[in-house]
């Protein structure tokens, strides 16, 4: 039996007319008509993504400028050339995924979970290749300080992203939360790379990188909580 034959059988089976109660459709029409007005479609996704990238860059730069740019000053040319473009690429990709998760029916280039994993792995690889000081002096104390500072900058980034994409509609709120959290975490990490002058490899690989998955997990959890509060919208 060939595909064409299966296709014909399915086609024939699908042709059976399916009727919906006209009264139900009238009720739906009347209900929508009651609040029908012109709406402004969302701007193109690339505009929203660019806005999200600028928001992240602005928060990272403003935070680092306030706390001091000692990290950037201490980095070598090679380190700067590798770290910041890598971060920029990740932020660009995360912004694109984040915007697409808020527009139903968009093409999904990368799943948010895969995006998070890819960001973490590439950050670990960049830090492992560039930094070879394996000392762990005041590992926990300094680490927690950096993690908290990174997350504190991820919070305003997340709020600004939520504001920018407030007109979007996430069909999978957890995935959208994960993507937004990843993007906000990258903004926090960007601030840390500009500010923190502790170049011990374990410090960077654990505490700096951790900002991204922690922010992503917080975004997903928050979205899941909000979704659980959402009531059913049936008319009757």
């Amino acid at each position, binding site marked *: *039996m*060939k*595909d*064409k*034959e*299966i*296709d014909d*059988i*399915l*086609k*024939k*089976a*699908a*042709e*059976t*007319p*399916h*009727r*919906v*109660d*006209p009264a*139900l*459709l009238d*009720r*739906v*029409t009347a*209900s*929508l*008509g009651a*609040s*029908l*007005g*012109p*709406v*402004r*479609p*969302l701007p*193109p996704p690339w505009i929203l993504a660019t806005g999200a990238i600028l928001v992240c860059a602005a928060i990272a730069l403003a935070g680092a400028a306030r706390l001091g740019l000692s990290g950037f000053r201490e980095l070598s040319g090679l380190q700067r050339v590798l770290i910041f473009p890598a971060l920029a690429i990740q932020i660009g990709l995360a912004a694109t995924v984040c915007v697409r998760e*808020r*527009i*139903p*029916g*968009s*093409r*999904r280039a990368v*799943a948010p979970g895969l995006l998070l994993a890819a960001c973490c792995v590439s950050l670990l690889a960049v830090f492992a290749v560039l930094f070879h000081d394996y000392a762990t002096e005041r590992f926990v104390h300094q680490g927690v300080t950096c993690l908290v500072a990174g997350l504190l900058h991820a919070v305003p980034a997340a709020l600004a992203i939520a504001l920018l994409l407030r*007109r*979007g*509609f996430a*069909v*999978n709120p957890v*995935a959208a939360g994960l993507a937004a959290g990843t993007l906000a975490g990258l903004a926090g990490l960007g601030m840390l790379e500009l500010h923190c002058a502790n170049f011990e490899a374990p410090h960077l690989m654990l505490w700096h990188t951790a900002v991204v998955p922690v922010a992503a997990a917080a975004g997903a959890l928050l979205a899941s909580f909000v979704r659980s509060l*959402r009531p*059913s*919208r*049936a*008319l*009757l």
Partner: protein
Amino acid sequence: MRTAAVGGTANGARHSADIGDNWVSRYSPMCLDNHPEQLMARYQQGDLAAASALIQHLSPQLHRFFLADFGSRGDADDLLQETWMRIHEARHTYRPGEPLLPWLYAIARHIRVDHYRRAQRRTAREAQLDDASSPAPAFPGPSAAAPDLEALLAPLPESQREVIRMLKIAGMSLDEVARATSSSVGSVKQKAHRAYERLRERLIVMGFGKGSPGGVS
């Protein structure tokens, strides 16, 4: 090529044949000549006739989409209403010029998932859900003109059923199904391929084909 077999528009679901006489008498017949994408663009501009035409035009396939999963007409009615409410709230997220069906089915899937989640919380309805998900209807014999679509698809896993329904009932392309299900075209092709493999076995057992293997390349 299998893609051609599973990816083409299967029926006239996009056309206006389903629009009832009821509607024609009340709203402009100009809507009948418009594509859903054009109707949606006019709906965004606040045109009630376009909104009504869209509802009349797309509700049968959406209702069928829900009915296949839940088995109960009441549940399908509720989900259909809820879907239109969400579509109304989110209508500004549709971008004119983009295909409408992936956008619409992405929202419909979201409503269905939410409904599953709520239903699972209610233990009283678990048995009912189990009944709905089991392959209940019996196949008619090969002498029948065509088997019931849902009975034919019932043995397939939900993800494969969903893909076949979108391709064959909604007449969506592979790319549109990928958009609606937030997956890749490759993943949709793979699901359709596996579904066709299972359907082939099933149909041969039912005596619809001669049993020639292959065909899905």
